[in-house]
């Protein structure tokens, strides 16, 4: 490869970049990393700054893969572009009828759910109807297409979503409407392209969200294209943890909804592969939330339904669960129990120990008093930590519990650990997996501090704190491969198997996904196709996912399903079943460069000093602080220990043990 390859992760506060040189170094140190401030108003500038920060100019760069929170933030903050909706006659109100449920069972004061994305005045109807097998009941006439297109035009919007009933079974009506609309409307989104699955409300809401994001993303991509040298390639990290071309993203911007977390998950998948982990759970603990995601056989678990900012989104995305607990979570005594979160001190005023006016006790204050945080470090160059402020915040809580301050601090940590353990358990149970089979990959500011006690509660015996834990998401970007995936409704019963129909569906969907990759310059015969079948007994509504299904032999497929169901629930009935859905992933596994930190092997551990630490028992002990880069590979060291570098602190409690490897990863063996 000629030219550098850059992974750039544009986060809310910082933009991380990793640059991999043209020829992979075998021993030398030429990889570069940097961190620059994000510029929410000018995301393109953050990319230019990032390139400059690693000492390069764009013409020297062969390829950039970038992750971004542009779409995520617009959804979470409800920044909507006016959008028209066209639905089957009688169904345009579906966007408002929704599913009829409310989000909070006991909070009458809160609105049951957000207002519908499209107001009644922008809802239009096309006279047409398909049945559930895609047969035409009422033909969509050209005259009606002309009428409804004219109505949308008259409304004055430049964005429209189309969602016709059963359109994923027969795309003809939506396609014809789309053709007519695209001649006169700038941004058009069709439901069978965005989410070809049944359940009209979810498909409609997803399609509308996609349409609403198109203008902004096209603008962003346009600015990038203006600055980018023609020879340099650009890709984006999408929510299912692969990269996508700008051309596809311009039509499916909603694929970026989970771009940021997906990059971290991609990097974790790489670590899991490097270290041969069959089951891994990521543990990314930050200031306000903690993200966890399961990685099985080096592949991230994917979910197809997600609520983001109260909006239901249905498309394949890394199954990241966000727990509302992090460093800023506030502890308080409620009716005699110590509760932590979900209220957070946020960035302002922040935890009390930041000295920025916060007075309520937070997890970070407990971390400060337990010795997890380095008291001499300044955060972001401006915040000096204050133990006095932390003590002042925790003291009243300690008094109310008749605890010492140390005991109260370790109590806050214990409660956080219990919250997290419950969330981790939920993430595995939802997918029928046993936490004790898992290793943990801990990163994020607070992840390596709290990982061991959480792992212990979950019965997890091994934790890896990856090298590069700062800029970890950028690492995920630089190592991503091109992949497009799509989930589609099949609804084929074992008793009415239609092999020809299934083969045709597979061929169609695969060809469509592959075409996007071929258009982006990947040779067709190098593409790899993966299938995940969703199968259920008739009457069940949850599908059991079958990886690598035998789609050519229903009897063999049935046996795969029975075995999986038995493993999940302890029984299988052997009765009739249904192939409900199929997820198809097409990827171009060309050799992505392997970014690895360059470190000079060390022979002697450098002890930076000692620090007073408090562990779960509430007793204080003096603990050695080791310089992370100096740990000799392959030599286990027993806790209690702190391992620190410029970006992260890893806490190893008494009885646990840590070993560094040559790549700079730390492995912690957890005493269970």
């Amino acid at each position: 490869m000629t030219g550098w390859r850059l992974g750039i992760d544009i986060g809310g506060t910082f933009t991380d970049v990793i640059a991999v040189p043209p020829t992979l170094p075998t021993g030398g140190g030429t990889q570069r990393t940097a961190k620059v401030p994000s510029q929410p108003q000018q995301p393109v500038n953050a990319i230019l700054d990032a390139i400059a920060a690693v000492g390069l100019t764009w013409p020297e760069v062969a390829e950039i893969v970038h992750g971004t929170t542009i779409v995520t933030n617009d959804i979470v903050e409800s920044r909507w572009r006016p959008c028209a909706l066209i639905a089957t006659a009688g169904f345009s109100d579906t966007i408002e009828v929704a599913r009829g449920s409310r989000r909070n069972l006991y909070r009458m004061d809160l609105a049951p759910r957000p207002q519908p994305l499209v107001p009644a005045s922008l809802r239009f109807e096309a006279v047409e109807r398909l049945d559930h097998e895609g047969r035409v009941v009422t033909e969509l006439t050209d005259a009606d297409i002309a009428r409804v297109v004219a109505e949308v035009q008259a409304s004055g919007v430049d964005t429209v979503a189309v969602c016709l009933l059963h359109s994923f079974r027969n795309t003809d009506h939506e396609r014809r409407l789309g053709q007519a609309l695209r001649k006169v409307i700038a941004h058009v989104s069709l439901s069978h392209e965005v989410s070809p699955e049944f359940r009209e409300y979810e498909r409609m809401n997803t399609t509308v969200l996609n349409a609403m994001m198109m203008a902004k993303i096209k603008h962003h991509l346009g600015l990038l294209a203006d600055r980018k040298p023609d020879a340099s390639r650009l890709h984006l990290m999408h929510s299912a943890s692969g990269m996508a071309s700008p051309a596809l993203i311009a039509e499916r911007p909603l694929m970026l909804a989970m771009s940021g977390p997906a990059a971290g998950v991609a990097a974790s998948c790489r670590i899991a592969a490097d270290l041969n982990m069959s089951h891994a759970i990521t543990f990314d603990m930050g200031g306000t939330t903690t993200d966890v995601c399961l990685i099985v056989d080096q592949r991230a678990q994917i979910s197809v339904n997600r609520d983001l900012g109260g909006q239901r989104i249905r498309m394949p995305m890394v199954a990241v669960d966000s727990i509302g607990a992090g460093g800023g979570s506030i502890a308080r005594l409620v009716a005699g129990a110590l509760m932590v979160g979900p209220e957070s001190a946020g960035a302002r005023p922040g935890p009390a120990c930041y000295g920025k006016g916060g007075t309520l006790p937070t997890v970070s204050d407990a971390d400060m008093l337990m010795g997890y945080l380095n008291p001499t470090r300044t955060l972001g160059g401006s915040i000096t930590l204050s133990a006095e402020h932390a003590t002042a915040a925790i003291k009243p809580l300690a008094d109310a519990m008749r605890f010492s301050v140390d005991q109260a601090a370790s109590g806050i940590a214990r409660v956080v650990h219990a919250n997290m353990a419950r969330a981790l358990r939920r993430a595995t149970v939802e997918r029928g997996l046993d936490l004790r089979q898992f290793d943990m990959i801990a990163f994020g500011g607070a992840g390596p501090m709290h990982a061991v006690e959480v792992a212990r509660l979950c019965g997890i015996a091994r934790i890896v704190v990856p090298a590069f834990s700062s800029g970890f998401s950028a690492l995920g970007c630089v190592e991503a491969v091109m992949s497009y995936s799509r989930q589609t409704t099949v609804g084929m019963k074992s008793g009415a198997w239609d092999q020809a129909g299934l083969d045709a569906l597979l061929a169609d969907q695969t060809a469509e996904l592959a075409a996007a990759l071929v258009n982006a310059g990947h040779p067709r015969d190098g593409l790899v196709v993966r299938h995940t079948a969703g199968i259920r007994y008739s009457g069940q509504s949850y599908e059991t996912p079958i990886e690598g299904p035998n789609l050519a032999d229903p009897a063999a497929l049935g046996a795969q399903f029975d075995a999986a169901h038995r493993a999940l629930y302890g029984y299988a009935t052997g009765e009739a079943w249904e192939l409900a859905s199929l997820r198809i992933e097409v990827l171009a596994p060309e050799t992505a460069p392997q970014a690895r930190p360059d470190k000079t092997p060390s022979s002697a551990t450098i002890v930076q000093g000692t620090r007073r630490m408090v562990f779960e028992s509430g007793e204080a002990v003096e603990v050695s602080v080791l310089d992370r880069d100096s740990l000799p590979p392959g030599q286990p060291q027993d806790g209690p220990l702190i391992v620190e570098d410029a970006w992260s602190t890893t806490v190893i409690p008494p009885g646990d043990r840590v070993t560094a490897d040559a790549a700079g990863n730390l492995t912690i063996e957890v005493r269970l």
Partner: protein
Amino acid sequence: MKNTSPMPVTIDPVSLEVVRNALTAIAEEMSMVVMRAARSPLLREAGDHSSALTDSQGYLVAQGADVPVHLGVLSFTVREFLARVGADRLAPGDVWIVNLPEVGGNHLPDVKLIRPVYRDGILYAFAVSLAHWADVGGAMPGSYFAGARDAWAEGLRMPPTRLVAGDVMDDEKLALILANVRGPAERKGDILAQIAATTVAARRLDELAQRHSTNWLTAAFEAIHDRAERQMKDAISAIPNGVYSGEDWMDDDGHGGAPVPIRVTVTINEDTASFDFSDSADAVPGPINTTRFIAGAAAFYVMKALYGPDIQPSGGCYRPLQVITRPGSIADAPDDKPVVGGNHETCQRLADAIFHALTPVAAAQLSAGGPTTAGLVIFGTRTDQGIATFYEVHPGGEGARIDRDGMASTRVHLANVMNTPAEVIETEYPITVEYQKIRRGSGGAGHHRGGDGIIRAYRMRGVETTVTTMFERAVVPPYGLQGGEAGALFEARIEHADGTVQPLRGKQNVQIGKDDLVVVTSCGGGGYGLPVD
């Protein structure tokens, strides 16, 4: 942390929260097992099921999926079960089944599977899985018989019965059950899923007991009760002392009767509260009677929603609450009375009556009357594969509040089951959905308007379909508050293929034919405050 000494164990605020998380995680895991593996449509994403753990006396210590109406049920189920069966008859590896309303229950379709959990021969907890089966036998598909005049017409009545002994299914009892319900294969799937949930719970509890001890766990259970009691007392203390009365009305019992009064007298005395429903009507002939356990659920819901959303459901919650019902009344019906609709219809009205009572002291916190009805319509169509039963709820307009309009198309208060998408209905049942719309203008006028209801129309593709209705607010509308106007009434009708139109009453079973159209028009919410113009 092992503590096996007989010394009294104290549970500090940290341990209390840690163990509460651990127990809730177990109950949540039970719910996920049921949701993913069960068959009845209601158990699906709609989540009409609940899971709970109780202490050895049957008092609730943790709950998974939180369906408010089930709280009242599961708070009493194991205690009533123990009162009839006795702990000495239970053994490790047992799973019992029960659905009798009088055994801490509500109506026959909500079937409970109960597993006693032991360690070293000592019974220290129970795991309970409650699930709404799509059919439990009786006169009509879906087991809602509007014409029922006694309890036996409503389906298979299961007293506490040991279905699994020594972790082995009793196939003969299972066969007896399956022979009496529609869709036996699916019901078997439901039973297996519920048993699997209790098995998981027992395993997880054992891990917890291993880490601590049963002695410590028992102390923790007690601490959980004490804490919930304190939370409930704090909530009650927020209400001024006094005696408050309220009433609301059920439309009818389906047998042609007049509106039926539901009355409550709420007495607040410092940190205790009593809810006396004695002045409510006598039990009625039709299936809107209910049990005193449901009355408890309504009282608990109102306290939590108005004064303490964070109150932890637990046996301790009920210590400062006294729920009084008059045996023989609609809220404490004789065991031989039909109750199927009371579970979600009368239950909501009991809550409405309490809201009315508290209006003088809580007007700023209250919502005006909303769709306090499931708006239930059941279609039972005979097909080549048997009887396809489609059970559907219809949301209406939320009541307005002091600071905002009500939202359209929403479930309120004790229920939150989702609707079924048209594409799912058309794929799985011989029914076409012709349209689904917002019912504009159906919300009551007011300074803030009530939310709008919906209109949905179903065209029959099958030759012969039994339609069952079970809805309210078709005679007595959702009320306005502080001068706001009432919401529009719930309506339903059949537009026959021959052009004739037949109105449907709120509790009715009728036979219809191919191409007939059933149009369901749900109620609007009440307005809040005087309309401005």
